[in-house]
């Protein structure tokens, strides 16, 4: 029991920063991201013994994080109304790095959570479609359509990013 607890705490220390980055991309808000990571670790703690016994806990933890995120959205739909820290800043039309980042951030916030999750998994976490499908608990075809629709929606929301978004879905 104590060994399990120790390994859990080591894992938490090692992975908090990485998961916080993903959570921030998903929620677009520092506080919500923190809550999401905290809730994820709470759930994982309850089944840590089983998760750790399977080897690498990352896939399971990631799955919990993404599902928790979608679950929040379903329950309160509060994530659709997130206030982005950079949302009030003027967008730089020159599309420099900072400006692009802000535009993407704002546009991401307007996507459906599953689309956002699919894009983050594919283009931030650099997972394959199959891995993404496994984490989201859906078929590969669904991942493809979520990514395609997500990119299309981004293009619609931010036409200035057309060049950036010409990716192979």
């Amino acid at each position, binding site marked *: 029991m104590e060994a399990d*607890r120790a390994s*859990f*705490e080591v894992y*938490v220390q090692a992975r*908090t*920063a990485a*998961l*916080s*980055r*993903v*959570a*921030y*991309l998903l929620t677009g808000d*520092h506080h919500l*991201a*923190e809550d999401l*990571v*905290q809730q994820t*670790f*709470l*759930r*994982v*703690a*309850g*089944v*840590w013994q089983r998760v750790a016994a399977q080897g690498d806990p990352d896939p399971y933890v990631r799955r919990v994080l993404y599902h928790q995120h979608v679950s929040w959205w379903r329950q309160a739909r509060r994530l659709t109304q997130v206030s982005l*820290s*950079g949302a009030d800043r003027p967008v730089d039309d020159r599309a420099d*790095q900072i400006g*692009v*980042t802000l535009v*993407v*951030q704002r546009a*991401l916030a307007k996507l459906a959570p599953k689309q956002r999750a699919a*894009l*983050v998994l594919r*283009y*931030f976490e*650099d997972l394959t479609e199959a891995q993404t499908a496994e984490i989201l608990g859906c078929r590969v075809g669904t991942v493809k359509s979520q990514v395609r629709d997500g990119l299309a929606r981004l293009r619609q929301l931010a036409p200035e990013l057309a*060049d*950036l*978004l*010409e*990716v*192979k879905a």
Partner: protein
Amino acid sequence: MTETRLTAVLTALAEQSRPATIDPATWRKGKRRRRIRVVTAVAAVLMVIAAGPLLLSGSGWQSMPPADQQRPIVPSRVYPPLTGEDTIVEAPGGPAAILVAGDRELRGSDIWGWEGRSLIVGQNGSYRLARTVGETTAGAGGLLLSPDGRYLAGMPWIEGTHWPSSGEQQVAIVDLSTGKAVLHSGGGPVAWAPDGRSILVEESVPDRPQWVGSLRLLDVQTGELRQLPPVNGRARAGNYAAFSADGARLAIATETDLYVIGLGDSSWRKLATLSSRDRIAGPGAWLPDGSRIAVYYIGGCEEPPCDETQLSQRLFQVEYLDAQTGQPTAGPQLAPAMGLAARMLGWQRDGDAVVAVYSPEMDAVRRTGDTYWSETDWWTVGGVELLEFRADGSRHRLVELPASALFVEVPADLLDRFGGPSPTVFEGAVRIVLAVYWPVGQVGELCLVIVIASVVTGWRRRRRRQRNVTGNEV
């Protein structure tokens, strides 16, 4: 290249994130939340399991009544009782059409203090439980239905009665129309008289329980007792007495002799000698005209040791004794019954016999020297069928009983009225499904109680601990 750009933008965006501050108590809180969720889920499942039968039984969702209430009919099929089925005391269902005792869902559970929960199907189609402290038989020395089905006789361990503190042997008579039970002195129940106004009771001798004790005729309305002539000898428990159809004579069988008692003048005489293979056929042994008494002759294993297979293949061939001379005589040629035991309930107007045929319990063995062995004991019997033996030699099942039925009793006045309506197929299916998980349900209900008690206790303990901590901090 553009894919790389989107990735780069997302990475840049992610770099704006701040590492979450994780509560140091996450491990403890997570474990606790998990425990609560598991307990809640288990409790919910158990509640569903427990609530299903209770809801069904409490919703008034009962069997279809017979089409003609003035002419009660024994249903063609009896389904298992529900977990929370009403009892004859809680909600009297009126006169009975059939009584079934047995194992599993008909046995009950010591958890609730009732190990016997026999099923009574009313003449109005109602299902009611007759709960007893211990496992019980029906007909064979346990619960007995009066000829009209209105009264249930048994030892005073039926729900609604109390075992006499004096240790006096008594009989409990429960009025199934009112649920009221009355205790009478005189002994335990043996057989109802055909008119239903009196019942034969026996006060057994404590150190010789298998011997015929003191026989008395009890008037169930007045409680008046009438002592009958003594009969000496060992008897086969649950199957040794039969009233003639007119109620004027009573046949008593010991293991070696058959006696006839004249109830008008209390005369008695030995009618015939019985071998170890002879049995009085049952409470319906007298032929309707009173001229003959049916006796079963057992073929197959009678002398121990007998194993289950041998016990299940015994043949019970009906023979007839002249009620005046005791000599063998002719009678309806019925096919033999095959099984552990057979008990003739009575005769129909067309000359067919109604017989309960018992099969042995799994791994039942009759051992040499086992003087307490009884072929109609709850622990020996493993199944029962209610059959009609026709004069043409054929046999037909009269009522389809639950798989867990071990004993069956039908009021004597209804032996001509089989084939009545049963619950709907849907209700029957639900009853069968619920009966399948009967043992699980019982354990589940116990677990539910334990879980709720544990949760409440744990919650109170935590509250107390928190209060103490707060007090210490202050």
